[in-house]
Structure formats: C-alpha cells, structure tokens
C-alpha cells in the first residue's frame, strides 16, 4: 500500500462520517432499534417492580416509594400510563431482556450484576450508610470499641464487623434505637437528630434498568432523572413519613 493511495481513501471516508454525524444531529439521535420510546409515548409504560424499601414498596399490592413516584412522573411527561408488574429481580430482568417490560425498578444500584442483560441508567441518587451518634453527644474521634446498633441482616452489619473495630449490636430496626451510636442511612440523620461520626460504611448509587440498546428511551429517561434528582431527598422523607 503506498501512501498516496491510502490518503486518497482517507479523505472521502472521514468526510462521509462527518457528514453522517451532521445529518444525525438534526434528526433525533439516538434512535431505538425497537422503537420503545415511540410506543410508550402516549401509550403504556410497562414497568417491573420488586419491593425494596424505601425505593419501592408493595403494601397491599399497591406500588409506592421513591422510584414508583419517579416512574409515574416520567410516564406523565410522556403522556403514558404505567402498567406495574411485580416479581423477583430475576423474573423482571428476564422479561426486560426480551423487551416484555420497558423499565425495572427495585432499589437497583450501579454495581448490579444485571449489566449484561439490561441497560443501566446513570445514577440519580447516592446514599451512604454512616455511623452516627445522638447530636447531644460529641462525635467520637475513633469508633474502636464503640457499641454501634446496626440493622441485622444488612451489608452494613458485616462491614462493621469485619472492617472496623466497633462492636456491632444487631437490632431489627435502627430507627427505633435512642441514645446510642447507630449505623444508619445518611438521609435519616436530621430526622432522628443524629450526628455523623465521619465513618462511612457503604455507598450506593441508585439506578433503574431499561432494555438493552433502546438508546432513545434510555437517554429520555436519563434526562428526566437528571432534571428530577433534586426531588429525591423530599421523596425519601415522604416515603419515611408514610411508614
């Protein structure tokens, strides 16, 4: 291959790509391979839900919680109604993979193992589990040897046990603990009059799942989430008050 020949081919190819890009900018890029956004708009959003308080709840079979609220608002923006389907995460993801569902919510986080079967949105909220003490007490310099109440059967309990020198005291509901150090969701601190000790046990980036490759729908949902992520703390408080 001599240089003049290769450069003669480079010009037109790059020009064609540039032209395509310019054309594309004018006509709704990206598009959905299977037209999900077009179908949902003015129609029905088929959403899968699995309960994961406070993000999703199914009290008396009725969907509620932060993510349900967000999805309902998103559907309203698209002029669509929501048809809720509840099931296990595995069932819902299998349905999402074959596009029998348009969206799945259920306290999913960015490190979800479903990435190969579903397109995960960018995170719209980040929450942390922190070690806190009642605000009447000074924050300790060190939590070593401190008895910390932690919800039984959570990853926070395990992290507290393995990664810190604190003494975990497993309880059924940390929000009911008074006057002692607790491992608790950061967004509950103000409500329960607690002070952050600066020890953060875990961090969760919250996401939703959409069908693979339905990029117009994915991008539309992400735009909605970016515009509405400021509402999340208020929605969390509302969900907590409703308990």
């Amino acid at each position, binding site marked *: 291959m001599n240089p003049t020949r290769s450069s003669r081919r*480079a010009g037109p190819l790059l020009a064609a790509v540039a032209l395509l890009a310019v054309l594309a900018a004018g006509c709704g*890029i990206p598009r959905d*391979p299977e037209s999900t956004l077009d179908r949902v708009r003015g129609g029905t959003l088929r959403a899968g839900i699995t309960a994961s308080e406070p993000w999703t709840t199914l009290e008396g079979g009725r969907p509620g919680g932060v993510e349900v609220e967000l999805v309902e608002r998103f559907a309203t923006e698209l002029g669509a109604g929501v048809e809720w389907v509840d099931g296990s995460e595995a069932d819902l993801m299998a349905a999402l993979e074959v596009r029998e569902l348009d969206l799945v919510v259920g306290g999913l986080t960015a490190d979800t193992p479903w990435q190969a079967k579903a397109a995960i949105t960018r995170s719209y909220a980040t929450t942390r589990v922190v070690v806190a003490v009642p605000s009447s007490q000074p924050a300790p310099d060190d939590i070593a040897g401190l008895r910390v109440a932690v919800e039984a059967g959570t990853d926070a309990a395990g992290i507290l046990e393995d990664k810190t020198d604190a003494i975990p005291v497993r309880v059924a509901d940390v929000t009911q603990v008074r006057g002692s150090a607790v491992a608790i969701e950061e967004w509950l601190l103000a409500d329960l009059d607690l002070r952050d000790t600066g020890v953060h046990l875990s961090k969760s980036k919250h996401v939703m799942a959409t069908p693979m490759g339905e990029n117009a729908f994915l991008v539309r949902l992400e735009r909605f989430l970016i515009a509405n992520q400021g509402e999340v703390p208020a929605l969390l408080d509302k969900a907590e008050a409703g308990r």
Partner: protein
Amino acid sequence: MAEHHEMPPDKHQKLVKAVRLEWISILYLLSAIVLLYFTLGSSQAMKAAWVEDILGLTPPIAFLVASRVRNRKPNDRFPYGYHRATAIAYLCAAVALLALGAFILYDSVSKLLKFEHAPIDLVKPFGDRPIWLGWLMLAALAYSAVPQVFLGRLKQPLARELNDKVLYADSEMNRADWMTAGAAMLGVVGIGFGLWWADSVAASVISVDIVRDGWKNLRVAVDDLMDKEPTVVDDSRADPLPLWVKNELMLMDWVKDAEVRLREGGHVFLGEAFVVPVDNEDLVGRIDRANQHLLDLDWRLHELVITPVPEIQRPEPAGEGG
C-alpha cells in the same frame, strides 16, 4: 544522539528524523488511548479501536528500543551484538496482536449472534449539560484517526531509506488504525440510527483486520528469527544484495566459484561468503581486499565473513511458499 557505527551520515540524519517522528507517535497515541478509554461505553467497535490503538504503540516502542540497542557494539558476552532484541520484541507484539484480534472477533461475532443491542447513554462531562456519549465517541475516534493518516505518510519514505522493517510495519499500523477508527465511527453512527447490529459488525471487521495484521507480523517475525533470506522493506520480494555480492565475487579473477548467504539483523545484513580460489597465492590478502570492496558496496552490508573452501555445497531450492 550518538553517531551510529552502522550508518552513513546522510542516513543518520533520516534516523534522527524517524526517532523524533516515533516519539511524536507515542505521545499522540497515548493521548488517543486515554481519550478513547473515557468514552468506551458499551460499544464493541470502540473497544476494538481502543485495543488497536494500544497495540499501535508496539512498533514505535520497538523502533525506539532498537535504535538504541543496535547502537551498542558487540561484546564478549553478546559477540553477535544486539540485533536480535528487536526481532524478539517484534515476535511478542505479533502474538499479542493475533490473540487480542481473535478475542475481539469472537466477542463481537457472539454478540451479533445473540442479537445483543449495545446501550449508549448520557454523560455529563461539562458541568450540568448532559450529552449523548455517542457524540463524544465520534469526536474521540476522529481524534484517533486523522493524525494517523499523516504520521503514516511521513514514516513510509523514511522506512524505505533506512531499510527499517519495524518503521515500515509502523506506517502500515497507522493505516490500519485510521481505517479502524473510521469503521468504529460508522458503528457508533449506526447505533445512533437505531441499527443495533452496526456496532458488532464494525467491531468484527476491525478484529478481522487486527487478526490479519497479527498473522502477517507473526510470519515476518518468525521468518526473521529463522534467518530467512533478506527481503525488501515491504517484504514483497527477495532483496537483490546477496546476488550482487556473489556476482562481485565471481568477477574477481582469483575466484573460481562463490556462494553468499546473508541474514537480516535489524536494518542491516550480516553473513558469510564461501569462495573456491583458483590457487592459494596470497589468499589472506585477497580475501581481505575482497571483504573491503564488498563492504563498500552498500551501507546495509554490515559484516561479511569470507571463507575459502575446496568445493561449494549449494542449498536446495525451497518449495513454493517456503
């Protein structure tokens, strides 16, 4: 840079230029690799283009290492000098190219067969304005394509002048790289238009090209290590130098018969000449004068050992494709 003991001054100037060009290539490739890394997303074609850019680093690095190492004179521990270092580096790079190409090909084709649709979502690189990642991918790919066209064009004539196969392979790699980036751009634009298969198809095409490159380079590297006859810089035909040396020897009146075998040591040739002298008169003087004359024929002929023999045993002609 120090004067090279294997190179005439005018060639040395070209070498300095080539070294500078390769440094520019490495810095540019590193910037393109970082840029592509941050825009990879879930696109197969982007992944393939990224891998090709990373592999594109090997020829410039091999060239720069070789241009230093070959400047070292042979010593008592390495009496043949350090020429082979390049060939070994080259073999490793070729194997890596082949393996990675095969992996991406398998990955892309299996994704195509599973009808997998690549998701590309929004990113927020500049403050609060979200933008579709696809646009950034296209920009990154354009950056990894356009300069390669010019780098490749500048390297090719230098490679011919310096008789340097690594440099030549590098200019070929530049060509492969910008074509890869172009194919990946088509793949991303395809996704934008809702053609889910465009990405995997582009990635497959790219990986076939990587595999082909790897196979070609592997063959060249193995040939070099096996001391195959010298070939011209683009490997298209045998180099005429051994024949020329042989003819020069045959023309000397004291030589009854002669045979020459040369091998490539990086950008220069080394080897032996066997001569059947008509008589033993002043044999040492004759051989010495012949050696001086032959080494002056061409700068690429770096070392020649002339051995007087009673009779010449010629090698068998190789079969086709040998």
